[in-house]
């Protein structure tokens, strides 16, 4: 592996990174689909036509039809609403709670750090599956409850990553310098920790979005309730898995939609990260 390249980072900075643009474009499409779904397809996503089941992709049904002859394209279009809500609500919740816990633990250190992180250990060792059952069984199989289950299972992850990076930042020279100059608490966090933490957390957030999507479809795959009357990509993929040999289009299109959406969000996140990077700010 050739590591001795001449100044790669500097050079890259001058190039336009295409991926965030592509990502942004696709993501705009997803939002467009979510808003204008009823105008983009003539089909009702829940209309059952048993005689038209398992039709392969055609002009009339570009993505084919499923077990009940429902139009897969219509379900994918409507399903974008569900995925936007589930994905973003759950990741935002986990980032907010987990990130705060991690920064607090890393910043405070000592006993507070220990208590907070052991709390995270407890949460992590508690299986997400049991948590999901607990929530679904007591609250029902709705969208909000799925989001709550996903948030809880992702909090410790954010907390640990945030903590590790916070400690690292704290140890770095400039914090020590500020501290010796009399900087304290909140100001230190706002001025030095958060900006330095942001790039890593953005990468982590965009990556966890994938986990959030996977988790909601995995829960259904494992037989833990997700209400099937709302079109949902994760649900469609897990339903389509048993059809992979005989009607692969049923799972393929929503699967591709999930994958491309996550891909685009991640590329967007990369672009955002480059903008927020404090080192970059200095360079401009």
């Amino acid at each position, binding site marked *: 592996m050739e590591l001795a390249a001449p100044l790669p980072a500097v050079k890259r900075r001058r190039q336009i990174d295409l991926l965030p643009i592509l990502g942004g474009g696709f993501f705009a499409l997803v939002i467009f689909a979510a808003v204008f779904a009823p105008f983009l397809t003539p089909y009702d996503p829940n209309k059952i036509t048993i005689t038209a089941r398992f039709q392969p992709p055609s002009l009339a049904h570009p993505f084919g039809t499923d077990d009940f002859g429902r139009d897969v394209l219509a379900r994918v279009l409507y399903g974008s609403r569900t995925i936007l809500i589930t994905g973003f609500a759950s990741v935002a919740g986990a980032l907010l709670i987990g990130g705060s816990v991690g920064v607090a633990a890393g910043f405070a250190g000592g006993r507070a750090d220990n208590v907070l992180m052991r709390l995270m250990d407890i949460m992590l060792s508690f*299986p997400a599956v049991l948590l999901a059952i607990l929530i679904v069984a007591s609250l029902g199989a709705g969208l909000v409850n799925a989001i709550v289950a996903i948030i809880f299972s992702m909090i410790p992850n954010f907390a640990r990553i945030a903590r590790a990076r916070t400690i690292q930042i704290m140890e770095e020279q400039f914090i020590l310098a500020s501290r010796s100059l009399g900087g304290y608490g909140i100001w230190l966090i706002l001025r030095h920790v958060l900006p330095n933490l942001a790039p890593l957390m953005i990468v982590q957030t965009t990556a966890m979005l994938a986990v959030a999507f996977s988790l909601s479809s995995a829960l259904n795959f494992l037989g833990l309730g997700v209400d099937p009357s709302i079109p949902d990509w994760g649900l469609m993929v897990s339903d389509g898995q048993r059809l992979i040999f005989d009607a692969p289009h049923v799972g393929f299109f929503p699967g591709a939609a999930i994958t491309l*959406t996550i891909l685009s969000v991640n590329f967007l996140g990369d672009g955002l990260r480059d903008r927020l990077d404090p080192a970059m700010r200095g360079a401009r």
Partner: protein
Amino acid sequence: MSLRYVLERLIWLPVVLWAAATLTFLALRIVPGNPIQSVANQMLDRAAMERALSEWGLDRPIHEQYAAFMSSLVRGDFGVSMSSGVPLSRLLFERLPPTIELALVALVISTVIGVIAGVISAATRSRWLDYSVRTFAVLGVSIPWFWIAIVMIVIFSVNLGWAPVSGRIRAGIAYETITNFMIIDCIITGNWTALGSFLQHLTLPALAIGLTSAGFVARLTRSAMLDVLRVDYVRTARSKGLRERRVVYWHALRNAIIPVITLQGLQFGALLGGAVVTERVFSWPGVGRLLLDGILRRDYPVVQGTIIVVAFIYVLMNLIVDLLYPLVDPRLRYR
């Protein structure tokens, strides 16, 4: 200093385990259903069900059940599965080693592939290489796990015939169980046929997990390396010769290793109880399926015992990860 830190962490261990066990105990009693009810509907009459409940002590008040659970736990007794009467020690002996084997191999795969891909992506001058690594890193994490698993089966098992679909070993091959770590047992007994078959069976599930988490590792590595490369080290490197630049790259890589170790430590813990999907698709006899089946059947002792053991290994892994930090990066001291 460092010894004190380790001791302090170790003191926390039983507290974490107790809390996990207690939470699990409570959660199981809150959710509807009990170990007998799911068979009760058609298999037995009410009298038989009530007899079974009372024989397992499930008709007693919750606090008494909790006291009984805690007192046997303190004695190191995980109890007996209420749906099958099999001691948990036996179930864990059967199910834990396959999961650990799978998780370790998957971890090695994801670390090697992820770090290499991340470094290439961060250090290369080729934009296209960077793009493709980044694309694949995200693809790996964004395709639903069971979909990757089944597609791998379709390609490599059904179409190409390179690897078996499922299970831990080919049906009908004789082998001896000593530690139930197949690699160790096969080497001890010199059973190369079984070892070969085991490795074949291990390949697809380990790749399915390894490749998906390699995406995370690659992204973290790339991001952490760029952090360093962008800051003033680059300036330093620019002003100096090639040798120094190489030093900078190593520094950048070392910087990347901290989040990677953190992530992999977490991943290993998560894989112990959370590889359910992969274990399900590949019929891998792991602890994730034991836990899921236990939860679905409301088999209280199975769920409680499994979670305690998984939590134990998990907390231990975290401790090891934290202890590794200063070794990797001497700037970080125990605090």
